[in-house]
């Protein structure tokens, strides 16, 4: 590694090996005065999939477009997401300026067809983005997921042309932050027990009820909301202009602190009938379809966390010495590293493999449930292994491991608890066996 200063500090005849990415990161970290320069992430930064052979590269980057997307997001994550991650975690706030950069880069409409203003890419592309962003800031990535998967992607597939024209341009640009409301204080995994109701009244629907743990609730302008019309789940888009709609204060949380969450409160909330998504009572189908890409991308986030933690522990174990040798010479440490690598690769392969069969035209609940069921504990376990290998350094805020460790837990809960995935998989397998 060659120490490189700011551009103005360089002499006229300086050494040329000055890859921008590296010193860009160093300068930003120095300027913000917040996060210390991370010493642990330079091993694999240049190759997004440095461990991949050519064969598995075809799984992770199936086309040239996917590869370019990965390179772009990885570079964006190193240059712009990483330097702010620790400070956003401390604040417990979404970095809105950075969020809008996702719009500039065209990432907010990744799965939306080109003619409707998106990039027209598939679930593998969505997985790539979540994987790369989560290496540096899973909390920020969660805000991206709530916006682009739970709102934009979900909304697109159940909205009419008029509804798309009203909501897509400003959510794809990032001008409006968006989210989705499903969970309620009394209904989580048992989603059909939701009690939020919608009643038709002339040219509008009147909504009553409360949604909770809603990511982007604080900053969001519009939300895709599920409510029951005559007992049947129905989807609506509700925005801040609707009378009777409000959000609670920020709900503070353990991890994923780069995004916020709140309650969505509907008190005789009047939603124009034009905001009904699809037909009355058709909400369950939309919900089930969208849960698949949600679970898949949450699995990808866990893979990102595991990848980064593995990278950090490998480097630390080589640099840190005990009893006159690097600690990676000890079998106890090798077990953490070896198992972390094997489980990370397994989670990655399962997630990318399932991604090939997730899309608007095909149902793959069992695949997406399996990916998240497997990957979520991997992120948590690898973060835990990294912290153990790094000891005090892993536990302290100087390094990102403790943040990733806190972030990882959410993936066993949000978007379906691991218990929900076990239930669904058993149900799907039993049904298939009975055929």
């Amino acid at each position: 590694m060659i120490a490189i200063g700011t551009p103005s500090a360089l002499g006229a005849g300086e050494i040329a090996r000055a890859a921008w990415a590296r010193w860009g990161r160093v300068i930003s970290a120095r300027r913000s005065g917040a996060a210390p320069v991370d010493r642990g992430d330079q091993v694999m930064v240049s190759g997004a999939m440095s461990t991949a052979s050519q064969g598995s590269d075809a799984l992770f980057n199936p086309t040239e477009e996917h590869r370019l997307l990965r390179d772009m997001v990885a570079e964006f994550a190193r240059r712009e997401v990483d330097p702010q991650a620790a400070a956003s975690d401390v604040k417990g706030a979404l970095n809105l300026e950075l969020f809008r950069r996702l719009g500039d880069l065209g990432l907010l409409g990744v799965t939306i067809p080109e003619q409707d203003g998106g990039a027209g890419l598939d679930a593998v592309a969505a997985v790539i983005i979540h994987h790369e962003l989560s290496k540096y800031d899973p909390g920020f990535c969660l805000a991206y997921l709530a916006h682009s998967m739970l709102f934009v992607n979900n909304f697109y597939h159940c909205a009419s042309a008029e509804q798309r024209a009203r909501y897509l341009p400003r959510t794809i640009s990032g001008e409006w932050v968006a989210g989705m409301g499903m969970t309620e204080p009394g209904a989580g995994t048992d989603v059909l027990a939701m009690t939020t109701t919608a009643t038709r009244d002339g040219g509008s629907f009147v909504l009553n009820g409360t949604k909770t743990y809603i990511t982007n609730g604080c900053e969001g302008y519009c939300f895709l909301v599920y409510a029951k019309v005559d007992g049947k789940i129905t989807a609506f888009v509700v925005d801040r202009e609707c009378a009777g709609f409000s959000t609670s204060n920020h709900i503070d949380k353990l991890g994923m602190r780069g995004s916020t969450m709140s309650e969505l409160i509907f008190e005789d909330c009047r939603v124009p009938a034009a905001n009904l998504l699809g037909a009355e009572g058709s909400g369950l189908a939309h919900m089930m379809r969208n849960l698949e890409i949600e679970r898949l991308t949450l699995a990808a986030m866990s893979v990102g966390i595991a990848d980064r933690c593995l990278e950090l522990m490998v480097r630390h174990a080589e640099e840190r010495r005990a009893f006159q040798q690097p600690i990676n010479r000890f079998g106890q440490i090798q077990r953490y590293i070896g198992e972390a690598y094997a489980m990370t690769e397994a989670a990655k392969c399962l997630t990318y493999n399932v991604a090939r069969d997730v899309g608007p035209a095909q149902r793959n609940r069992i695949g997406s449930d399996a990916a998240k069921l497997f990957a979520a504990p991997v992120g948590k376990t690898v973060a835990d292994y990294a912290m153990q290998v790094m000891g005090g350094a892993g536990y302290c805020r100087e390094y990102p491991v403790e943040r990733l460790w806190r972030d990882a837990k959410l993936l066993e809960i949000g978007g379906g608890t691991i218990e929900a995935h076990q239930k669904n998989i058993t149900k799907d397998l039993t049904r298939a066996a009975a055929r």
Partner: protein
Amino acid sequence: MKILVTLKRIPNPDEPLKFTVGGLDYSSHKWVPNAFDEYAVEAALRLAEKVGAPDRLAEVIVLSICPQGQRQHLIQFLGMGADRAIVVDADEDALDTGTVAKAIAAVYKREGCDLLIAGKLSQDNEGNQIAQRVAGILGAPQACFAATVEWDRGQRALIVSREVDDGVEVKRIPLPAVVSVDLRIVLPTSVQNGATPANHAYKEGARLASLRGITLAKKKPFQVLSLGDLGLGGPANERAVAVKAPPARKAGQIVGSVDDLFDKLTKEAKVL
């Protein structure tokens, strides 16, 4: 106005080198664009665009001379905003600096370009010859190691500042011309074109290709030429015969006291 930008693909300079008999083994390296060439594209795009408006003041053409099947790096630059790409198919062993310079000059003439922007050197061999040799072949004015560029569109000229050992030299060169860029060219206000507001601060560094840019890149013109199309060919005049690792550093000694140190410096090292 047509701006030609040259791009070289190089083995990732952040990966460790593997020495073999008589050279380097790059077989497991990831190939990446030369960083200074990325800065050259960024400089060209800043010259060509008017921020906040769809206007384009220049066409940006990216050119790379590389083996068949190794053209992926060009797509990234089309994704960043370059208008079209030209690739000259050539095997590495057919190339030497002279041939590369002649090929670039031939494309420049064939396209009727007004400006060549190149990185000041490539990070792999640090040759620092291409821009100068092309300028020589074209008989065009040149400014090397540009830290800032200002385009005087009325007078068809560039005002280029260069950071040299004893200060900053400012040159004015008429177009058509050849410029090679230093890394400071991608600081927020290093490039001025008289159309984008002078106080507009770009993000430092070469821009990222947006996702829309990446999807559009496939549809942009991509022309493939051979050295023969440019009237060139034949064996290279230069070739690398060996690359050797620098000798390993000898182990140091730990001394017990200042007296020992003084003794060794005077008697062994004989530097005092």
